[in-house]
């Protein structure tokens, strides 16, 4: 049935195989391929600034995806994601500088090392209720930040560590235009991996743990294992994202991995939709564009009465911070399922258009 209309008007799946495909319809698969093909032209069309925003969306999108696994799918809360992101960045820089490992391998390796570190912090708390994981990750955030400042052999201490540019088989990918494809490739691979994970036994086990941990346990799901697993996966994707971030900027400093960044990661997945894979990307785009659009707004309002009243120029940093908090609250109160839910509603509306009843 799925092949006959653009958007099917209901669920017509007759087998489990059909129910667990990566793409629900052929149209959605074709649209996705077309979308990726289209975005390949972005470096030739967009200017430097827009391109750098796209790259940021990609990098943070990968890290946010990891957070969505632990928060959205498994129902645990983690407040230390930025520290793992930073750990990935430093690890990748360290590996490529110290051991001369090609950057191509450093990125996934950084993910693995970060996952191992994440497990150290996740293990004690994974045996307990979500609340304790929140507090343990908060501690992880502070301990790792302290470690970054202290371990000069690893991070360079107060001097930022340098990271090699990305290269494949000796062919170096310098500059935004080439790096864009690296990030795009990683985004596609990571998102496909997670989509695939969510239709496997392990993925469904994670969701079962979130929905009702007692029932999940009765069905034979090892709670400790899956909580730890999801936490490790989250740290893995944070590490990969961080590594990409390091090789994008080519320097890694201590700045920008604090609790504010962790809150921004949480905001991304809440705005996008907890437990929605595509929503993660939407939320990331929203959170990357929000501060930028506030910047545009403040430029547009320069010397107007509003500007004089709020003192936009000097206070834009604080106003941004406030906007992040307010947006989180607004979404939690009015749209707890995030942008992904809104998107589904728009699709449902057009599905039956013009006879929506």
């Amino acid at each position, binding site marked *: 049935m799925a092949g006959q209309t653009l958007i099917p008007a209901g669920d017509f799946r007759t087998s489990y195989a059909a129910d667990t495909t990566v793409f629900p319809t052929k149209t959605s698969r074709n649209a996705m391929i077309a979308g990726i093909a289209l975005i390949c032209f972005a470096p030739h069309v967009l200017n430097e600034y827009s391109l750098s925003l796209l790259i940021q969306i990609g990098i943070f999108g990968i890290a946010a995806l990891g957070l969505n696994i632990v928060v959205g799918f498994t129902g645990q809360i983690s407040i230390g994601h930025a520290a793992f992101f930073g750990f990935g960045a430093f690890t990748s820089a360290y590996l490529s500088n110290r051991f001369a490992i090609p950057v191509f391998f450093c990125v996934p390796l950084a993910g693995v090392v970060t996952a191992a570190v994440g497990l150290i912090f996740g293990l004690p708390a994974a045996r307990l209720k979500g609340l304790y994981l929140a507090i343990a990750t908060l501690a992880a955030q502070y301990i790792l930040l302290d470690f970054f400042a202290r371990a000069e052999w690893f991070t360079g201490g107060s001097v930022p560590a340098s990271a090699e540019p990305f290269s494949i088989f000796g062919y170096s990918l310098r500059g935004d235009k080439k790096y864009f494809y690296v990030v795009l490739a990683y985004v596609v691979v990571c998102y496909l991996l997670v989509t695939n994970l969510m239709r496997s036994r392990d993925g469904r086990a994670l969701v079962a743990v979130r929905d009702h941990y007692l029932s999940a346990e009765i069905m034979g799901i090892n709670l400790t294992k899956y909580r730890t697993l999801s936490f490790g996966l989250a740290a893995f994707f944070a590490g990969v994202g961080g590594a990409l971030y390091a090789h994008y900027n080519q320097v890694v400093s201590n700045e920008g991995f604090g609790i504010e960044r962790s*809150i921004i990661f*949480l905001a991304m997945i809440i705005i996008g939709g907890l437990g929605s894979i595509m929503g993660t990307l939407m939320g990331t785009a929203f959170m990357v564009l929000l501060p930028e659009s506030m910047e545009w707004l403040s430029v547009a309002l320069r010397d107007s009465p509003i500007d004089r009243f709020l003192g936009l120029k000097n206070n834009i940093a604080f106003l941004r911070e406030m906007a992040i*908090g307010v947006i989180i609250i607004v979404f939690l109160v009015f749209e707890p399922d995030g942008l992904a839910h809104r998107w589904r509603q728009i699709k449902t509306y057009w599905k039956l258009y013009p006879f929506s009843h």
Partner: protein
Amino acid sequence: MNTQLLVQLLINGLVVGTLYGVVAMSFVLIYKASQVVNFAQGELLLIGAWVCWWLLTKYQVPFYLGMPITLVFMFVFGIAIQVVILRPMIGEPIISVIMVTIALSTVFSAMMKWMFGVNLQPFPRVFNTQNVNVLGLQVQTVYLMSLAVSLAMIVGMAWFFRLSKYGLAMRATAFNQQVAQSLGISVKSVFAMAWAISATVSAVAGVVVAVVNGVSAGLSAYGVKVFPAAILGGLDSVGGAVLGGIIIGLLENVAHFVDSEYLHWGNLYEIAPFYALIIILMIKPYGLFGTKDIERV
């Protein structure tokens, strides 16, 4: 071994620790009454301190008047937060509630930076005498005041819980909300009152810290130290929170002593409570006095 320094640091630890205890106590109060983990506790401290500072410097209000006004303001403010933001969240998953308090803390701290700037502002002098002689030791008056105020608040809270009628209602609600409601206790107003008291007590702590060290955005760090203290004492034990706070305060200063005398790692004292937190979570997650039936899975 530098005994002089050790004694000094231990006294310091005791003073700071009692303050941690007071803040942890108000944190536990909210958790016990409404099962909300309040990540914005430090910001309540900050707001209280700024409001009092603002009254004292901008309007030249004397301290004995400014302080009660601050407390009344914080009481109303606590109720307002509960009614406007947290009441609609009742029944939502625990993640949403935690996220709301995290978002609140972001909003408040940014708002305070926006309104009052990021620089440390000295607090107007409250006492005329700087030092008092206690048993041959020169102790700063503000330290004594801090200790006295903290102890007074702890005793006041204990009295409130044990002997007052409202405290009884609060304990009943903490025990079982439905049963409390069927006995005619307004659970709604208990929640609001928990936030109001918590905000007020935090504000007192905030003002005390401000008198000692001045006001700055860094004050909200006290809100983060609440977690080691509350977890150590047990998340649902008011007395445990106080003891946990004192232990964490002492631990910090002992770490500082060990660091400056032997290890020379620098900065150890800021991070020691978090190592302690991880260790406690590993071996005794329900803390010293917490209810042991917190489900282990």
